[in-house]
């Protein structure tokens, strides 16, 4: 079927004059393929079912909208953690600000270097997991990233990584338009923690492709900046092997537009995949969208989706989550919960929690609730002498806590909890 006129126009305008980064033959081929897929699919518009609740217009314009710089007086996150810092300023790798890219158990290389190498392990992952993740739902913005990403790193984890790797995304230019693509390969039995912090750019497209091999463990904790005006679309494509663990948590404080897509494919037996998030939004120009797609294609696996949103002053929260259990993926245990706390009359929560099941011996459940703060609980705290705002913040924090519990590392969870508490106090 021919693409709608608006789609064709949007796509043409966005692709006009773009430069595809040059590299080795394999890299050029995968990027050319991605570009042709973008043309074939067309960039998303508000009329697409998959963008029903989020208007992608600001993500697809030829030029980004500008975003004022925000000075975060709280200082960087995870300072106390011994980690390898990889710094990007407006989407450009900053060697001076980064640590030496070495740690025991991991090999880190800039994407720009990797794509110049004729024979490279990243060839089997770069754009490969993204392509797999295009069915049954098309994600043209992900293909666009594969075609045009200008920077990023490729990481191979060969053992237990000695320390976490922290991507730090700094925003210093009001009109920056960044496109990063990171690839992580966690080899059999290996283990790594990836941290991501910062708003990155005025407009940000970021992709993470992760291969979690048999018996491997991948932990991911992300905090997407604070109170900034950034517009972002992020994708995480993961392929999870047998006896493997994948756990991802994202914290979002404000930001004009954030669309986080997480596409997991569980292909090995007895694995665990958890994806969770907490977001707090204050004001009409806050729009946050969590879109998750978990495919079970193996035996006896467990998946969890836990998403909590606190919205006020006209903020919008979106959750689109799906569990697909393929025929034969018996003994699957799928769980999905999306909840929102609306602190005033104007905020809204839009959700589409889906199940698609083709195996009979599975347990899948999903729940979604939305509503105001529990007046009875509030009254109870107030009757014990807790001031109104403090009581409300206490209840709000406890509402968010269930998602923070998805983070295995108590220290990291504690630090994010403190930031949430401070944010709630500032936005009382």
């Amino acid at each position: 079927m021919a693409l709608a006129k608006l789609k064709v126009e949007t796509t043409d305008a966005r692709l006009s004059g773009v430069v595809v980064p040059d590299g080795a033959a394999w890299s050029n081929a995968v990027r050319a393929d991605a570009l042709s897929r973008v043309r074939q699919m067309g960039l998303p518009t508000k009329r697409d079912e998959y963008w029903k609740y989020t208007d992608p217009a600001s993500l697809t314009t030829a030029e980004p909208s500008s975003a004022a710089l925000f000075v975060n007086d709280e200082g960087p996150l995870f300072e106390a953690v011994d980690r390898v810092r990889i710094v990007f300023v407006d989407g450009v790798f900053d060697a001076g600000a980064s640590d030496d890219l070495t740690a025991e158990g991991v090999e880190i290389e800039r994407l720009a270097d990797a794509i110049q190498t004729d024979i490279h392990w990243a060839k089997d992952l770069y754009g490969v997991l993204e392509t797999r993740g295009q069915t049954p739902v098309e994600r043209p913005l992900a293909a666009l990233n594969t075609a045009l990403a200008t920077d990023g790193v490729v990481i191979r984890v060969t053992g237990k990584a000695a320390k976490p790797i922290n991507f730090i995304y700094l925003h210093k230019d009001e009109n920056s338009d960044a496109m990063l693509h990171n690839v992580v390969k966690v080899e059999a039995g290996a283990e790594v923690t990836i941290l991501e912090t910062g708003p990155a750019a005025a407009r940000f497209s970021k992709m993470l492709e992760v291969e979690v091999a048999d018996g491997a463990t991948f932990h991911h904790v992300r905090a997407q900046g604070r109170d900034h005006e950034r517009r972002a679309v992020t994708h995480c494509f993961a392929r999870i092997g047998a006896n493997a663990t994948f756990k991802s948590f994202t914290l979002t404080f404000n930001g004009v537009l954030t669309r986080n897509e997480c596409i997991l494919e569980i292909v090995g037996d007895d694995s665990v995949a958890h994806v969770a998030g907490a977001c707090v939004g204050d004001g009409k120009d806050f729009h946050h969208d969590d879109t998750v797609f978990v495919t079970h294609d193996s035996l006896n696996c467990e998946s969890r989706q836990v998403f909590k949103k606190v919205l006020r002053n006209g903020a919008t929260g979106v959750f689109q989550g799906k569990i697909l259990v393929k025929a034969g993926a018996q003994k699957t245990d799928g769980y999905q919960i999306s909840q929102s706390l609306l602190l005033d009359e104007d905020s809204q929560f839009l959700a589409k929690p889906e199940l698609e099941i083709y195996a009979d011996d599975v347990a899948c459940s999903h729940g979604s609730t939305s509503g105001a703060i529990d007046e009875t609980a509030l009254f109870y705290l107030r009757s014990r002498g807790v001031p109104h705002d403090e009581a409300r913040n206490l209840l709000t924090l406890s509402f968010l806590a269930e998602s923070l519990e998805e983070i295995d590392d108590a220290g990291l969870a504690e630090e994010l909890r403190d930031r949430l508490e401070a944010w709630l106090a500032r936005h009382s």
Partner: protein
Amino acid sequence: MTALDIVEVKEGVDQDTVDAVKELSGNYKYGWETEIEMEYAPKGVNTDIVRLISDKNEEPEWMTEWRLSAFARWEQIEEPTWAMVDYPTIDFQDIYYYARPKSMEVKPKSLDEVDPKLLATYAKLGIPLKEQAILAGVEGAEDMPAEGRKVAVDAVFDSVSVGTTFQAELKKAGVIFCSISEAIREHPELVKKYLGTVVPASDNFYATLNSAVFSDGSFVYIPPGVRCPMELSTYFRINAENTGQFERTLIIADKGSYVSYLEGCTAPKRDVAQLHAAVVEIIIEEDAEVKYSTVQNWYPGDENGVGGIYNFVTKRADCRGARSKVMWTQVETGSAITWKYPSCILRGDESQGEFYSIAIANNMQQADTGTKMVHLGKNTKSRIVSKGISAGKAQNTYRGLVSMHPKAKESRNYTQCDSLLIGDKCGAHTVPYIEVRNNSSRVEHEATTSKVDDDQLFYCRSRGMDEEEAVALVVNGFCKEVLQALPMEFAMEAQALVAISLEGSVG
């Protein structure tokens, strides 16, 4: 041996449930055909056919124009593809849009004049068109007091209504119950005022087609303050081959009135799929209440997916007045393809909408069904209870929308959908849309089976039941919730379904 016999049933799935599903869909009891001389309009659809249908029904010009504008619109729009159903392309020009028994050419003045073959058809279906006190075929009904068990029936055969019972008695109460073609002639002011106000002619592909070519259906008007003295029912029978049935139902419950309406439908076994695209509009004014119950039993096709009815239906109730109430109850066992979302527009403050559904799909059946609860008024309440059961190679999807508009303060929704798979070749899917645009409303959506109410469990246990017994009782009781919403007339169907429990559901 049907596919179900050889299927290995997962541990935890109740054998009674498997047997009941098998029983329900094993042998289609209504697959016989009535041999009767028919007259047809030429095959296909165009403005001439639209005019012809309008002519046959002796409609006023405004009605013909309304149809023609719908047809012009229909030609511009495309068939929707978003539902999780898969079927060969329908050739809309290869269908008869109008078929009526020759004997109906001169409209019978009373039931006594109706062709005996037609009367026999309905008698065989268990719906005798006689003004008898009780509806035959309802086990146990004999013991009920005759008064209050009367059911007025409008019988629709292919494209025409063959008769409506108890019209005189209903008239005494001020109730109008007749075919829609008669209503257009006899009560044009009511039809003009309400038709297309709930489901506009431009609503969707099938509703638009229906607006252009609907041939008959039922019309109900309950005047203010009247409790309809008996239950009203329409029975739809498709008999002719290669014929589409496009019926239109319009129900108006004026202020403070009440009516319970039943709908049944069957069709002969045929190798070629047949289209059924109906529209039901319900208008409910202040303090009025409508119960609408359906047992949908169209021919589902054979175990290889040959034949069957494509059931593409738009049903919507508009709770216009304050404190108005609607309750949809549906048991969906038939049809090769089901595309059906009986909806509630909760416009009036404190209005209520309820949707209870059991959808059973076996063999190659595909069902994509659910509801929309659109909360517009303050303090509105809705409740959705949906049970989907898939067996054989069937696909069963619950698709629903709960929308809380900014002005629908203090509103509530509770949704529970459960699915059960019998065998590993079928599918069960849930596609809920939840849109909350104010914070004083509360929306809860659940799709889980392990969640048995703790309080109820505790109560049972405190009466000395062991855990298993207690769970069985609670789960079974929960399933009965849907069946209890069915009126007495569907007691036989309910009995067959009561054995179904959702133990072992997947979510």
